[in-house]
């Protein structure tokens, strides 16, 4: 049976992570993993909600060593966590010290972790071992599980690193603004550094000043793993970001103009990754050079127009592209557009059908729909039109906050007497657009 080591090659004194109070060596990491693995309850699966990227990695690795599967929920909404926990039977949560999830046993890491008392060898993990399940919003309203084997995560990390020419050592650190519980975050900010012998920054900088401080704190050269949203903020804020070797962006399309500005300002190439939860990262491009995506090594395009799939040795079967694509050459493609129903707000993907389903489950809602107005602005939020006599917008927003990720909360939420459904019961986009226009004309600004 083939195995792959938990981590790549590190020198004896290399840092594997930077926490707020300083570096963690490989020896400390392996001993933290072994200690936690000994303390974990006997359960097949675990919700890893640690907010520190390093603690998340320790929890992820300890679960793997114990043969447990880490569940990655698509949002932290209480209802989502409870539903995923309930559907995965025997399950517990790894939580920060001041946090707990109602109805779930919770394990925290000790505040003062002991110095390594023993030398722990690097664990060898079977390639076919199921290590993570990333959930995405399905069109039926049920979270859809995407199962990840150790082999899949290692293959993607190695193929991504080789595409970008990442080399081990040299005091390189990955600093990331993306959440590590997100599929791209797990791949690019956790698996990528540990498979290449690089360090990772444990934090998750949000504001441009946070990003600058994080880069300064870790020193050496850095790879910044981020999203178009955070990158735009750094460019607009005009911060000076020190010693970036490369910027890696994903989760939503990066405008070429923004990529150009970022390359000039931060003196580093901006590479973009194309991926989706079902297959993981599959292709990359340097946005200022081309709009064509090049598949990662070991990943192939299969099928024919208009239905294309991704094939790889680590995928149990071909996976359909969520977008419409045009294949332009050997392993190269352009994205033509999103599948109709799928939306992406700040890197959070969901289907409009799923969100609408959640809206219709709200007490007092008789009819309603979510849609994404076409404004061309990168930060366009969803709009919801709702028929709910006797209910206020606050009532509905409050209920939605409980069941969906905050990124999808409708802004605005319009209360209307009825929806402009056509004779087949469908909601034509044009009718929704007109309804919205009429509504914003009539509405007084006091109408919150």
């Amino acid at each position, binding site marked *: 049976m083939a195995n792959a080591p938990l981590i790549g090659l590190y020198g004896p004194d290399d840092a594997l992570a930077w926490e707020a109070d300083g570096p963690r060596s490989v020896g400390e990491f392996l001993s933290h993993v072994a200690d936690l693995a000994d303390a974990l309850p006997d359960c097949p699966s675990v919700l890893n909600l640690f907010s520190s990227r390093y603690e998340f990695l320790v929890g992820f690795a300890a679960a793997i060593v114990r043969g447990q599967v880490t569940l990655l929920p698509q949002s932290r909404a209480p209802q989502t966590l409870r539903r995923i926990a309930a559907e995965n039977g025997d399950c517990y949560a790894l939580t920060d010290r001041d946090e707990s999830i109602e109805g779930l046993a919770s394990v925290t890491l000790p505040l003062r972790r002991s110095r390594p008392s023993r030398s722990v060898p690097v664990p060898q993990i079977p390639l076919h071992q199921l290590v993570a399940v990333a959930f995405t919003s399905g069109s039926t309203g049920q979270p859809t599980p995407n199962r990840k084997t150790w082999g899949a995560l290692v293959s993607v990390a190695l193929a991504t690193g080789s595409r970008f020419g990442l080399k081990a050592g040299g005091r390189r650190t990955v600093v990331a603004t993306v959440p590590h519980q997100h599929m791209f975050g797990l791949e690019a900010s956790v698996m990528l550094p540990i498979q290449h012998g690089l360090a990772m920054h444990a934090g998750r900088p*949000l*504001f*441009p000043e946070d990003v600058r401080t994080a880069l300064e704190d870790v020193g050496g050269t850095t790879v910044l793993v981020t999203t178009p949203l955070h990158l735009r903020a750094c460019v607009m804020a005009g911060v000076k970001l020190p010693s970036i070797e490369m910027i890696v962006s994903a989760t939503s399309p990066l405008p070429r103009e923004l990529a150009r500005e970022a390359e000039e300002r931060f003196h580093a190439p901006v590479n973009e990754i194309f991926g989706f939860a079902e297959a993981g990262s599959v292709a990359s491009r340097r946005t200022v050079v081309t709009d064509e995506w090049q598949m990662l090594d070991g990943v192939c395009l299969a099928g024919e127009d208009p239905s294309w799939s991704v094939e790889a040795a680590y995928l149990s079967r071909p996976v359909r592209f969520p977008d419409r694509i045009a294949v332009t050459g050997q392993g190269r493609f352009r994205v033509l557009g999103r599948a109709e129903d799928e939306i992406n707000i700040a890197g959070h993907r969901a289907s409009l059908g799923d969100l609408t389903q959640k809206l219709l489950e709200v007490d007092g809602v008789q009819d309603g729909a979510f849609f994404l107005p076409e404004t061309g602005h990168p930060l366009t*939020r969803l709009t919801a039109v709702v028929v709910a006599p006797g209910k206020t917008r606050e009532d509905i927003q409050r209920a939605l906050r409980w069941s969906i990720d*905050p*990124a999808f909360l409708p802004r*605005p939420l319009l209360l209307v007497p009825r929806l402009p459904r056509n004779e087949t019961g469908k909601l034509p986009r044009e009718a929704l657009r007109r309804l919205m226009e009429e509504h914003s004309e009539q509405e007084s*600004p*006091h109408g919150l």
Partner: protein
Amino acid sequence: MSSQPLEREVATLIVQTLKLKVDPSTIQPEAALFGDGLGLDSIDALELSLAIAQTYGYQIKSSDPEIKAMFSSLRALARAIEKNRTK
């Protein structure tokens, strides 16, 4: 408590930046901006920080000791801007 001129100014900045459908004068100085109040989230915090940097020359960062308090209400945010503004 009556609201200060800077609070009104910041209320307008919030509404314009985040394209909220609210009259800025109806935002209560002590009411929550995030979570249950206006329902803002971390994407909004990022957007808002850019507008504040451009208007007042204040670069917000998570390590600011008053960061949690700052985003708790309009009044707290206006106070933090007053203290840290460079223009």
